[in-house]
C-alpha cells in the first residue's frame, strides 16, 4: 500500500468503527422490526404454509414470492368484499391496511 494512502485508510477504518458503535440501537430496532414482521406473517401460515410455502397437497395459493402489488390488491379486494371468498373476507378485516402492507412485502420477498 502506498504510504500516502495510509492516513486515509485509517480515517476510513475509524469512521467504520464509529458507525458500528453508534449503530447498535438502530440495528436492534431493525432486528426487532424484522422479527415482528415475520411473526405477523406467521399468522397466515396455518393455512398458507410457513413463510408462505403452502404444501402441494393443500392446493392453497402459494404466497411466497407473489408480486407485492398483486398480493396487496387481492388482500384489499377480499377486505372490501369485491373479491368473493369463503373466509378471506372475514380474516382480512381483522388486519389494518398497514399490517396488510407488511404482509404483502414480507411474502413477496420470500423465495
Amino acid at each position, binding site marked *: 500500500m502506498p504510504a500516502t494512502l495510509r492516513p486515509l485508510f485509517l480515517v476510513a477504518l475509524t469512521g467504520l468503527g464509529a458507525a458500528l458503535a453508534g449503530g447498535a440501537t438502530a440495528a436492534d430496532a431493525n432486528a426487532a422490526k424484522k422479527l415482528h414482521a415475520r411473526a405477523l406473517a406467521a399468522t397466515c401460515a396455518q393455512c398458507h404454509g410457513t413463510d408462505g410455502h403452502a404444501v402441494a397437497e393443500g392446493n392453497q395459493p402459494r404466497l411466497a414470492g407473489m408480486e407485492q402489488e398483486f398480493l396487496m390488491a387481492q388482500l384489499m379486494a377480499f377486505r372490501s368484499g369485491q373479491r368473493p371468498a369463503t*373466509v378471506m373476507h372475514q*380474516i382480512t378485516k381483522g388486519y389494518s391496511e398497514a399490517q396488510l402492507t407488511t404482509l404483502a412485502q414480507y411474502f413477496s420477498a420470500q423465495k
Partner: protein
Amino acid sequence: MQRRQVLTALAGGVSLGLAGCATGGGSAGRARVLVVGGGYGGATVSKYIRLLSEQQIDVMMVEPNREFVSCPVSNLVLAGMKDMAAITTPYTGLSGRHGVRVVHDRVLAVDVAKKTAQLESGTTVAWDKLVLAPGVDFMWDQTAGLKAAHDAGQILHAWKAGPETMALRRQLEAMPDGGVFAIAIPEAPYRCPPGPYERASVVAAYFKKHKPRAKVLILDANPDVTSKGPLFKKAWADLYAGMVEYRPQHKAVSVDGNQRLVRFEVQDDVKADVLNVLPQMRAGALAVQTGLANANARWCHVNFLNFESTAAKDVHVIGDAIQVATGMPKSGHMANAQAKVTAAAIVAELQGLEINPQPMLTNVCLSYVDQGQAIHVASVHEYVSDKKSFFPVAGSGGVSAVRSAQEAKNAEAWAYNIWADTLK
C-alpha cells in the same frame, strides 16, 4: 393457587444441559428453552423459536408420544372416512430440519425457582425459559363412575386422538343397525368447541350409509350448541332428519358402564348402545402440580403479551391449558397461533430486542358435516395494550354463509398446511 403446591425440592440427579445438543458443537452459553408437550402448541413453539432466532437458541421438547396424532380430522377416522396414518405425523421434521432436540420422556416435576425440570428417566434438565403446553386432562371426579367405566373400555371419550379413537370406531362398527350412539358434552370451556357436533354429524353420515335405522343422540350440558349452532342444526335437519336428535341442558353427573347408562342433573336417564361421554376438562396435570393453574385451580392465567404465567417468571403456558381471553377458543389452530406470539416474545427477550407490542392471533375451525361438506368459524384477535388482553377485531371473523364442498376442500388444505407449519 396455593403456594405450597409449587414443587420446590428436587431429588438430585445428573444435570443435563441443553447446550450443544441441538446442532452439535460450540453452543455453550447459549440460551436454553425447554418445551413440555408436543401437541399443536408445543411443537409449533419449538419450531418457531428455532426459526425466529436463526437457530441461535437451543430448544429441547419433551413429549412421551413417538408420533404426533392430530385431534382435528380424528372425527373422520371415527366415522371410517380416514385411517390413523392420515392424521399421524412424525416428529423427525422438528429434530432433523429444525434442530429441536426431541426427547420422548415425561416431565414429572418442575422447579420454577431453580429453573430445572425432572424427567421420568431420572435426568434433570436446566432451562432459561420454560414453555408448558400440557393440553387438557380430565376431571374424572365430576362424573361418578366414569373413570371405572372408561378404564373397563365400556364408555370412551376419544377426546385425545390415538388408540382410543380406533377403540370407539370399533364400538360403532359393532353397533347393530337400529342402535343408539349418544355423545354427552360437558359445560364449556372444553377442548375444541365444535368438535362434539362435528363428531355427531360424521357418525350420522356413517350410519346413513351403513346403519340407516340407527340414531345419534346429542346430550349437551350447555343451553345451546356452543359453536356454529345454526349451521349444525341446518345440517342435521337437511341431511339426517329423524336420525340426529339434539337435547340441550343435559349435564351428565354419573354413568353406569355395565348398563351403558348416563344420568343427568335434571333430565331423565339415557341408555345407549355406544355411549361417548366427554369428561369435564382442566389444564394438564403438570401445570396444576406446578401451581400454575391459578384460575379456579383449573386453567392457567397468563400475561397475554408473551403468554408468561402470572404465577411464575420465565414460565410460559400456551394452548388448551390457559384461561382464555374474550372469544378465544381452545383449538389446535389457536394453540399454534399462541405458540408463535410466545416464540417471538421469547426470542426478543433472550436477544435483548423489543417485544412486539401489538401481537395478533387468528383462528379458523373447520368442521365436516358429512364426508364432502364442511363449515367454518373464523376470528382475528388483536392485543389491546391498555386492557392487557386479546380481543376479536371489530368487524372481522364470522361463520360460513352455507355448508359447502369448497369448505371441505379448505378443511383438507388447512390440515395439510397446519401439520407442515407445526411439525415440518
